[in-house]
């Protein structure tokens, strides 16, 4: 049996890029939690702006990417607005790539 790790999931989600900001959703700090239950992966994430027109594309894109991970049979991605996204949630790479300031 293939063991699915959170690191593998996050690495895969790095393939999903927010097209407006040009940075992947992991380094943007949009991923709130990853839950792995046997072959099913559930991800809770947010977006930088409520009402973002890319909302459904990014959510579905994340699901598509997860289904490509070895061993993942089912994937669920849920978008939440609480807590709201803050630039401080970004990684250093994300901040450098987007020019978003912490304060």
């Amino acid at each position, binding site marked *: *049996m*293939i*063991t*699915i790790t959170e690191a*593998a999931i996050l*690495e*895969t989600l790095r*393939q*999903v*890029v*927010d*097209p*407006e*900001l*040009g940075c992947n959703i992991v380094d943007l700090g949009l991923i709130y939690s990853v839950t792995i239950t046997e072959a099913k992966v559930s991800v809770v994430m947010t977006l*930088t*702006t*409520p*009402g*973002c*027109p*890319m909302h459904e*594309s*990014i959510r*579905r*894109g*994340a*699901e*598509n*990417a*997860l289904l*490509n*991970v*070895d*061993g993942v049979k089912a994937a669920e991605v849920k978008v939440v607005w609480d807590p709201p996204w803050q*630039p401080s949630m970004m990684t250093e790479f994300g901040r450098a790539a*987007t*020019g*978003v*300031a912490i304060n």
Partner: protein
Amino acid sequence: MALPLAFILTGLLALCVGTGWLVLQPGLLATYHYNQNVIAVTHLFVLGWICSVVMGAMYQLVPVALETKLYSERLARWQFVLHLVGFIGMVWMFRAWNMKQVGHFGSVLALGVSLFVYNIARTLRSVPKWNVTATAVAAALFWISFTVTAGLSIAIAKCSYDSTEGLATADGVRTLTGGLRLVAGFMSRFDALSTMHAHAHLGGVGFFTMLIVGVSYKLIPMFTLSEVQSKARAAGSIFLLNISLAGSFATILLRSPWKLAMALLGVVALALYGWELVAILRARKRQTLDWGIKYFLTAIVLLFPVSALAVVLSWPRLPLNTFTGQLENVYGFLGLVGVVSLAIIGMLYKIVPFLVWFARYSRQIGRAQVPSLAELYYAWLQALGYWTFLSGLAVTCGAAVFSSEIGVRIGCSFVALGIATLAFNVAVMLAHLIRPKTKPLTLHTAPVPNPA
């Protein structure tokens, strides 16, 4: 996606033709504007370029900005056909100075506008959370309806109805010509130049400026990762702009000295808007401003000279001589080609990449590496276009003040070059629809489990 793009491409084509017209006939800006060719080219810019793009963008942006769905795509498709027939016919007939046919094509355009107003108004009814942007959009719908009504009334007033005297026609036709005579009689109470200026202000300020102000309260925070800093200030700017416009319309129409007070009220409204915009930008989390936003913000900065000109031209008992006539030309040119067009180009650099990306790449995200929006066009072309467009504006305005045809031709050629960079970038973006640029994902592969 196809419909907003059809409106936008129509608009771009009209912009290219309009700018080319000015390059070929620079005298249009170097002499006073009350003639058939100036009115024709102005309607080409206003209806063909600005209205086409604004209406197409509204079908796309209003649902996004107000988090709802467009009421009817079918009505929007019908409006596109009516708009196309209406504005092309109007420009053609203005040029031929056949006001009867202007009225006929104008009626076709008006039918399209009424479909547009109805469609967006029904969309507004489903807005979950009413806000300042929704108020501005609703106000803009009112003013565009008023503008079209005023425009048609002007056309009606310029027609003769003598040929209908002896017609033994059906009651319906009699009623119609009777109604047209009444409108013409009412309009004859006002000075022709004043009605034209009042009509122009309704469209330029009521529809275009109102939308620029209102929509930017949603889009600028969205693109710069910021928030509206004072809802009261934002609402105040929209309220005062409406009051100023209503007052300006009446005072321009009646040649009242109160015109200056109304212009100053408009300046206060725009100052409030500028204050709020600066506050939004200061609070932004995204420090780098892309060229699309730079174009838009430059358009807002150009509101300063346009407002200053509005105040000067509203001065009581200002003599109408060659110089002030040329200042009126500069006011109209800088307002429409400077403020409104530059703002639209800035927003186009946000809307077109989104439309193309959404149509071509939104289903491939997570399955392949897809380009970001900024990778769909050339930023260096945006920069080149920005500087050539601005240089062209400056040269054209300077030349128009001094009635220099050669100067206007040089300035408009620079503007045309700026527009060419936009057209090329749009073509580059559209090429993605035919030849998508994706790369395979570099997926994480789990190590082969040890059979032991």
